Each structure stands twice: as structure tokens, then as C-alpha cells.
């Protein structure tokens, strides 16, 4: 299993991914918008993640919690965009 998009972003010091809960799908501070065609390339969100996304400050159709996305070689060149705020 690869690492999560959240871990990769944190390791690369990408600002704007706070990840307070460290990847436990508790905090919703790792929210990002996943650009096409990458959005489809991840497993669909589970009910917990879906509900949390709905309650972020600016949910969109391509919103995900990046700690729930496992990266693999299929994701080379992945583009994500960040919301104006995680709060």
C-alpha cells in the first residue's frame, strides 16, 4: 500500500493541508479538490468521509479528504487544488 496524498503533501511541505488528526478521518483539515481525470482514479469515498466533506466550508463535486486517498504509480502527475481555508 502506498502513502496517502495527505502524507505526500505534508512531506513535500505543501502549505494549506493542516491534517490535524494525522489521517484518521476525524478533522477534515486535509480537504482538497482533485482535478480530472485524477478524481475518478481513486476509490470512492465512504459514508463517513462523504458526510464530513458536506460539512467543510466549501465542498465541491471533486472534494476529497486527502488522508483517505492512497497514491500509487497510477497517480503520477496528480493535480490537487486547495480550498481557501480548511476551517
Amino acid at each position, binding site marked *: 500500500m502506498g502513502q496517502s496524498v495527505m502524507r505526500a503533501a*505534508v512531506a513535500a511541505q505543501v502549505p494549506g493541508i493542516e491534517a490535524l488528526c494525522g489521517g484518521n478521518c476525524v478533522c477534515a*483539515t486535509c480537504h482538497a479538490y482533485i482535478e480530472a481525470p485524477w478524481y475518478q482514479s481513486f476509490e470512492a469515498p465512504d459514508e463517513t468521509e462523504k458526510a464530513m466533506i458536506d*460539512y467543510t466550508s466549501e465542498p465541491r463535486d471533486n472534494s476529497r479528504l486527502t488522508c483517505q486517498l492512497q497514491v500509487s504509480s497510477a497517480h503520477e502527475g496528480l493535480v490537487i487544488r486547495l480550498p481557501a481555508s480548511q476551517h
Partner: protein
Amino acid sequence: MDDATNAPRAEVEHLYAEYDHLAPPIGQDGTPYPYFEHLRDAALMAEQPIGWSEKHGGFWVVTSYAECQSIIANPIDFSSAGVIFPKYAVTEPLMLAEQDEPEHMRGRRLVNLSFMPKNVANYAGAIKTAVHQLIDGFIEDGHADVGKIIAEPIPAIVTALLMGLPAEDGPLFDAWTTACTHEFLADPVAAAPKIAEMYTYFEENIARRKQEPGDDVLSQVINAKIDGDSLTHKELLGFSTVLLIGGIENSAKLIGTALWRLAWDIELRRRLVAHPQWISAAIDEFLRYYSPGTVGRIVTNDITIAGKTMRRGQQVILALPIANRDPREFPHPDCFMIDRQNNRHLALGTGLHSCLGGHLIRMEARVVLTEFLSRIGSFRLDTCLPTNWIRGQVTGMSRIPIVFDPGERVSSERGAGVDAWLRHASRI
């Protein structure tokens, strides 16, 4: 081992042995930070991120960022039963904060969505109104103790809103949280009836919300169901209590310490008055720089970290105010930098137990500082009056006397909650 490494090690071992998270020495600047910086530097020099304190019957102290982070993120070897330390045998485990898995995540999921940004945003307007009403209460005077009249009332008013309680009951919450924490230590007999009164009050409120649900968080939580599961009556009581105690003290200390710093850090205040959009980043730097909370854990499996073997059953204290000044994680840790990148402080914890109120407190503090600075853009400490740093597991500046050029009220009406607070504050 040669003497060159022995001397710093002996010094830091002595410092650790004397460390008391409830009573750090206060320095010339009115805060415990000169002492925290001294302990941190000694720990760094001797490469001893963990030490043993002889206080309160003995406990491990962790001062480095990496080790605090890995211990908080490790619920297998460290139980949350030891969040608050020392405690007496009678203390009921705190809902969420002192629960372990799987009970903890069951409860957390049932309340988590109510604290997500979209829900929390509903309270911004009411918080803004309360700030202006509180300011109207003293703006014509040209002086005030903004610890008593802004930092303490706002979190109590917000908690009342969350729980769908009348805002004028705010001062009661203050008495109850003090009874549960400080007073219980000094005089448990006197505190007991107040704690009983609190439980009766919550019972009534829960019963009322079951009959007539509102838009408040407590109503949401009462009616929350996941896979047919919902909180029991006892859990609802525990949840009310953790909201009251966990939500109020920490938040009051964050807001109070920020206002105290803004009273003398003219450079910072000018930047935030000119660029209110930086207030959010400043709040996270306040959280890092003056972390209000220190948390504990109990070792559940023998484990060796940084050369120290911790035994099952031992208490560990994570010195978050020190870890958040670790130079290996935060370059120039003692500089207050609002443009800090990747400010991954531990002031709100991390992992499964990361603060439930994290989104709320960011919004709340932002509204308070934005509105305060829009009304009173220039103020200074009244140096004739003392400040007071509250020590304990939750710490920060509590008495903040300021002077400023008197201004005008914006409204002639005051909410009942604000009135109750103004009466409460003038009594003290």
C-alpha cells in the same frame, strides 16, 4: 561518558525532577515562558527529550515535538485515561477526552459533524453581536480588564449557544467549571454541591431538548444516529460537561493571552489592524506560541522512547507549550511569526483525540480579534494594575487591564447574556 556530556545531563535531570506542570515559575515578562525556554534548551543540549519529574508522585515529562507527536498518535501504548493529572479517585472519566477505543470513536463519530466548519459558521453572527455588546459595556470608560470582560464571557456565551441554553446562564458555567477544576482541589466539600447543581441543570436541559429540539449542537447530538446507535442519557450528560469544561477554559486563555500580547506588541497589532485577513494565521501562531493546554497519558504497554523505558501504569505529561517551541520543527521557535509556513503545532492535539472544537475556536477567536481591533485599534496595558497568568493544566493570561481613548457605543441594547456577564464581572 565524559564530563562534557555529563554536566548538561545532570542539569536537565535536575530540571525534569523539579518540573511541575501545574506550577511553573513565572518570569519577569509575566509568563512561564522564560522557564520553558530554559528547560527546552537544557533538554536539547543534553539530548534528553524525556525526563522524570518527582512531583505529584512521579511522572514522565516529554518536551520535544517529535516525541509528543508520536505518543499522542499512539493510542495502543498510551491510554487517554490520564489526560488530566493529578486526579482523585472519584473523578468520572471525561466523555471523549478520557475514553479509549473503541468507545471513544463511537462517541466521537456521533458528535463530530456538529463541529465541522459549516455547522460552526452558523454561530459567527451571534458571536460578533456579543463582542460588540460587551465592548459597548466599557468603550466609553477608556479602560477595562479585557480578560474578565471579553476573554472569559465569550467562550461561555458560545457554549450556551452550542447547547441551546440561555446566554444569561453564562456566569453559572463559570462557577461550575471553577468548581470542577480549581475549587475541587482546594475544597472538595464546598465544590460538591456546585457539581451536583451542574448535573441537575444538564438533566433538565437534555430533557427539554428531547421534547423540543432546536438548531443547537446539543439537539443535533441528542438526535444523532449512526447505524441505529445514539448516545445514552449518561453520555449526553458527560458530553455536556466536556463541552462546558473543555470548551471554556482553553478558549478563554487563548483569547486573553492574544489580547494581552496585542496590548504591548505594537508592531503586531498595527499589522493586524491594517491587514485583518492575517488574523487567522496569527491565531494559529498564538496557539503555538502560548499553547493553553498540557495533556497527559497513561502507559498501557512497557515502551522505550528516546532511551527512557516507560512502564505500564506510569503517568506521562506531554508539555505541549514546550514542544511547540521545538527548533527542530519550528525555525526560530521563540519568534512570533504570523507568516509561518506549515505551522503544525500540537496545541489542539493530533490523532484520534484531536480537538473537537478546532474549527470552532479558530472561527471564534478570529471573530473576536477582528471585531475588537475594528473598535479599539490602539490600546496599551495599564501598568498601574497587575496582570495574572493562570497556572494549571490550562494556562494563559487572565487579568488584562488596558487603557485606550474612549469611543462610542454602537447600540443602546444589550443582550441578556451580556448583561449577566457585566454584572458578574463587576462583582469580582
